């Protein structure tokens, strides 16, 4: 299955992936309209320290602790992709407690949010990958 992989050797810490992520999941067609004067809450996050930076997003684990631990069944697997039904989520944060990568985070609505590989938004393929200027984030079969 194709997944998003991150290679920190090429990460520039430019944070564009975060902005493209926030844009892709905003449901708004114009990036300026979507992000102007907005505190973004992207589904992937850059970690950085002097000399090192990398993006972290859902690894779509084969044995996903978030799915197994989800008390509502809102996190589930669809064709290998860990997918999320925000209508069902009650925001208990068991998934935040479970994810070894810290890749699930609270959303503005009180539910959680996570990378769903842009399958549900108009991008169709991961916007972070498309927006990375240095191929530090790739979407491929391994």
């Amino acid at each position, binding site marked *: 299955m194709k997944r998003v992989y991150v290679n920190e050797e*090429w990460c520039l810490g430019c944070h564009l992936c975060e*902005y493209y992520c926030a844009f892709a999941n905003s449901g708004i067609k114009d*990036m*300026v309209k979507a992000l102007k004067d907005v505190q973004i809450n992207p589904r992937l996050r850059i970690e950085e320290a002097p000399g090192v930076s990398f993006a972290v997003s859902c690894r779509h684990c084969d044995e996903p602790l978030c799915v197994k631990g989800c008390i509502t069944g809102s996190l589930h697997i669809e064709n290998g992709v860990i997918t999320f039904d925000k209508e069902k989520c009650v925001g208990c944060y068991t998934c935040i407690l479970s994810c070894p990568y810290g890749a699930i985070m609270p959303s503005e609505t009180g539910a959680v949010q996570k990378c769903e590989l842009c399958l549900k938004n108009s991008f169709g393929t991961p916007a972070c990958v498309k*927006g990375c200027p240095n191929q*530090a984030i790739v979407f491929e079969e391994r």
Partner: protein
Amino acid sequence: MPVNYFYPDYEVVRDRDKCIQCRVCERQCANEVHSYDKDRNLMLADSSKCVDCQRCVSLCPTGALKIVKSDNTFKENSNWSGTIIKELYRQAESGGVLLSSMGNPLPFPVYWDKMLINASQVTNPSIDPLREPMETKVYLGKKSSEIQRDKNGNLVNNLSPYLTLSVPIMFSAMSYGSISYNAHESLARAATALGIYYNTGEGGLHEDFYKYGKNTIVQVASGRFGVYKDYLEAGAAIEIKMGQGAKPGIGGHLPGEKIVGDVSRTRMIPEGSDAISPAPHHDIYSIEDLRQLVDSLKEATDYKKPVIVKIAAVHNVAAIASGIARSGADIIAIDGFRGGTGAAPTRIRDNVGIPIELALASVDERLRQEGIRDNVSIVVGGSIRSSSDIIKAVALGADAVYIATAALLALGCHLCRSCQTGKCNWGIATQKPELVKRLNPNVGYKRLINLITAWDHEIKEMMGGMGINSIEALKGNRLMLRGVGLTEKELEILGIKHAGE
């Protein structure tokens, strides 16, 4: 400073309606032009630091940025141009030699743009390269003038060592040090994938890149940096660098601060020491001396590798080339006055040397007249910008061309001409790790392959149009060129007719 003589050359223009304060411009500018004002939630710019490298413009996700040429003008004067005045102010302040990067930017004639290519109509039909075989492969080296057979009548291979190029293009010398590790890796991998060659320049060969040796030309220059037996044996050919188009007659100087880590190890000089390439080779004061070096290098590599001698295009280039063709060298590389550089004294870059088009035409003509054209192949560089420049160069007599600036552009260079600062925002002309990593060779080498592949298609298209199906048949075929807007003398030197003739 109470008096500021310098108004910024470029101004950063930000469309505040589009800016989303993502700060990518700030994070990506090594010149620290951009900054974020938290109190006002505004991005600011200090245009005086901007070199117009376009990094921020290219990465801005909303297209909120552009860099424009400042319209601040000194009082207009055709003689004392703004550039000259500014340079003078700078020297009045610093007392130093002006330094510049990349090629001569002055409005000297570009002869490529004054020559037009022929095409077939009715007779000698044109060829469709998508349907017919079309040969762009070339061999560089001495061509034997006679056919030898053994006593059984079988052909004897009396060919000198040669290089095989799938397209008549090579990446010319850029040293590791002047450009980054990742730029070198991109060039090396692209050359390997394309079946062409790249050139180490005078910086030695990084140990990681010995594996690309089959597609590497190793250079021996006046400083001899990084030269030793394994190095000479690693490459497919050895290039003796006598001169460089951007700075004929002078040597090179890579400041000690850039001689760190791998660069120092690869150049085989101590960390922090200045890498000074003398203006002349101190063992070469004549063609005979040159011959000795050619011979020594051949001896050292068991006569298995062709030797290239690279010179800058200067006034008496034809005579010099004639000497080189007799020195045992297999290939002459000529670098025109518009060739690029990582750093050169501005006055020399802008005022020394001659155009490559004229140099090429006169060298080819001279070697033909002397009957020694087949002794050597001719490779020309010094601002080859497109496939049509290549067609024209081949028609003027070149066997192949060297490209460097064009290759760097493919890697992202925006010709900001600030290489000498070492703060290349595109990760090319820098050794700072955080900048070097901006050039991912996985991206870079593919862009180089794309460029050369595209040019190859175009070369075939133009050859087909002329009814020529082999690049060899175009070589020196000056009837395929016509001049426009050229004087009798220029036409004479180029050896071409005027359009309409």
